[in-house]
């Protein structure tokens, strides 16, 4: 047999793309860093876990049902979302985490020579999916830590198929208000699809923060992403969704992998949606955690960037990857921000007060 000609088989944009290496399982990390425990403050997970009703679903899931395929298109969950938002069930697509729906949208609209536009310092997956699919990712620098609407509008051309806006932005926590979103959509004028990623929607209490799902009837080119991984504490089950104009979602559906969302995830998400108390409790601990951290960081003289969402970004007087390793040695795992193009910054998930206290103690030890 001739040798495998990988060089010929692999497209150049895949060759030059670096695979994302996720962190090792907790047990392995504990061994590596010689720590008996690990506080995960790196992925913006919910300290309270899933809402009680979702926990019940998970506990009571009959093991025998594991042998049966789930609903291929998350039928009941889409019904529930439709009722909640007063829309048609087919205006929703459920994915194996929001990352999967990003891939659906890019596949549905981009072809050779096309480009997407997003910010340089935001959630990396929009940029990654575009690049490893062979499309250009046009990155517009943030302005005052916020998505730059004028800068993005200037970069649009006939080949721009999708504009991704992370609202509030991960990791800076800044957001566009309703007026700014609407003004942007008017000026895009249906030339491209505009995706507003609202992964942290449920954390935001500001009155001028827009609910973009409510804007869908007005703007057919608008697609909104939401997730059950953050507020609803179902990150381990991987489930997220998109909402949009019926015709647009029907187009995206053509690229959608059916059966990719497992049965427990669908049912837990279904149960989670009703729990307003969980949202209130989560918002309460996030506010307490933010207040505590702000006071402590001011005392320590450390600059920070804090906005909406359950995270804070801190500028350190040392290299962020070194800080990561030193904190790991104390059982605290944060997110280094060099990968987000913020050298010397770490992003910390807001957690319960005892854990926030442990984090501050750890930080004091390493600086």
């Amino acid at each position, binding site marked *: 047999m001739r040798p495998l000609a990988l060089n010929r088989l692999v497209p150049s944009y895949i060759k030059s793309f*670096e695979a994302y*290496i996720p*962190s*090792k399982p907790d047990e*392995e990390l504990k061994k*590596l*860093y010689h720590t008996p425990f690990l506080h995960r403050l790196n992925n913006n997970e919910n300290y309270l876990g899933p809402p009680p009703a979702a926990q019940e679903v998970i506990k009571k899931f009959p093991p025998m049902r594991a042998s049966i395929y789930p609903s291929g298109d998350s039928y009941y969950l889409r019904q529930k979302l439709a009722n909640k938002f007063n829309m048609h069930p087919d205006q929703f697509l459920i994915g194996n985490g929001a990352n999967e729906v990003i891939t659906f949208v890019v596949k549905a609209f981009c072809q050779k020579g096309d480009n997407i536009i997003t910010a*340089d310092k935001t959630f*990396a997956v929009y*940029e*990654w999916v575009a690049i490893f699919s062979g499309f250009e990712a046009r990155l517009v620098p943030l302005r005052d830590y916020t998505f730059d609407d004028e800068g993005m509008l200037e970069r649009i051309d006939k080949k721009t198929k999708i504009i991704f806006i992370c609202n509030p932005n991960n990791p800076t926590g800044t957001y566009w208000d309703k007026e700014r979103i609407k003004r942007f959509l008017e000026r895009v004028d249906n030339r491209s699809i505009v995706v507003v990623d609202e992964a942290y929607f449920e954390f935001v209490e500001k009155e001028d923060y827009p609910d973009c799902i409510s804007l869908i009837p007005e703007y057919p080119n608008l697609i909104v992403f939401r997730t059950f991984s953050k507020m609803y504490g179902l990150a381990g089950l991987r489930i997220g969704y998109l909402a949009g104009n019926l015709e647009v979602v029907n187009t995206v559906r053509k690229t959608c992998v059916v059966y990719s969302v497992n049965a427990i995830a669908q049912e837990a998400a279904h149960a989670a949606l009703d729990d307003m108390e969980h949202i209130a409790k989560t918002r309460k601990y996030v506010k307490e955690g933010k207040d505590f951290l702000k006071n402590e960081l001011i005392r320590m003289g450390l600059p920070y960037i804090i906005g909406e969402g359950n995270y804070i970004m801190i500028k350190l*007087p*040392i*290299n962020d*990857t*070194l800080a*990561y*390793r*030193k904190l*790991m*040695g104390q059982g605290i795992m944060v*997110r*280094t921000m*060099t*990968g*987000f*193009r913020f*050298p*010397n910054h770490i992003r910390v998930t807001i957690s319960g007060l005892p854990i926030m206290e442990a984090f501050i103690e750890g930080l004091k030890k390493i600086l």
Partner: protein
Amino acid sequence: MKTLKISTPLHTDFLPVITNFIENTSCVFGIDKQGALKLTLASEEVFTYLCNVIQGDKTLDIICTGGIYFVAVEFSFDKIEIDLKAFNITATPSSESEESFREMGLLIAARSVDSLSLEEASDERLVLRLIKEKSYPPSGAIELPHIPPMASFALKVPIADEIKMFSRLLPVHYKDYPFPDAFRCPGKLVDMVTSTLYGISIATDERGLIGGGIIWKRMNEKIVEFFGPYLFNQQGNNKMAESLINACIEGLARTEIIGVFCRYPTEAFPTEYFESIGTITFYEHQRNQIEFPCYYCQLHEDTGTYVYVPRKIASFIEAEYKRLVLPRQVYLTEYSGEYRGDYSVFASEFDRELNQVIIRPLLPGEDCLNNILKHMEIFKKEQILNCFFEIDLGVVWQAYVVDSLMECGFKPCLIIPYGGKSDLVIFQYTP
């Protein structure tokens, strides 16, 4: 970069085809006639050598790459036990035997080009790479502008004329400072940046005057070495230095690059972005010596790796891992008499301006100690004072070179995390 490839049976009948291919391709790729002939000569010697030592019905892939400021020829062949000891810079024919003359040819090849390297492309294939760089005219006498201190500046990726100006300003403002010789050559620096193997960012004021800059290049697939930040009449402008470093790091974030490394930091270097990974002593001919703390910045979260550590440097390595909090699975190892061939092979990379040589082990061999001693004799004769030897702790046989290295006067001076298959230890010779 453009490439042309041919696959040829390993038989000397095909030599004219190979030489025509290399010579013509080199010329098309922009190298001057003399350079093309030297590269052709080196390639002819390598091909002839491989025809002689590789038996049977084998095929050789030859890839010629035009890298704008250089042309590379790669010979890709099955890994077999062939004697490559003549690729040592120290090699001389030992007798007038036929084998010695073959080796003489390889020696000619090694000395006709700017760089020669041997790498394992896979478990079965080796790649032998020859690189010949283009010739460029030296920097002409041009009056340089006065650079005032800049309160405000903007960062940019320079156009060709700005790169040339940067190249002219650099030796004037950093006269007594070590940096690669190629940076003094304006045309070459432009081509190096165009090739994308080097990156550059500069800071300019509203009139377009250059207040400073930073240059970086890939050491390998995972590590970038950067030079600077260089500031021209901007002493104390920490903001400019920090912005230049940020530009470099942000440009490399979300790529396969794991770390950035600086061997000769300037006074403007913002240390808070980096970790100190050791110290290099830079020796000058007047016997002056300057200590340079070396800095490293990891761009990815460290998920741990393994290392093979020889006992002789175990305490140094373990102390450094503890200081740098690097999660490593350490396997202590030592040579136990297993077969390793008669002759070791080292590649030597020279930088005459820095009076520096970096040696990298390519193949293990029983003559390791003698081979290092012979190398050191040559460097002494050539009055090269800054000698470094790199050991990859991810390659077990390289750990066995350490005993000989230390016997010859080398000492470990720094660790570059993920600088090789795993961490790279740099040894320095004290003259």
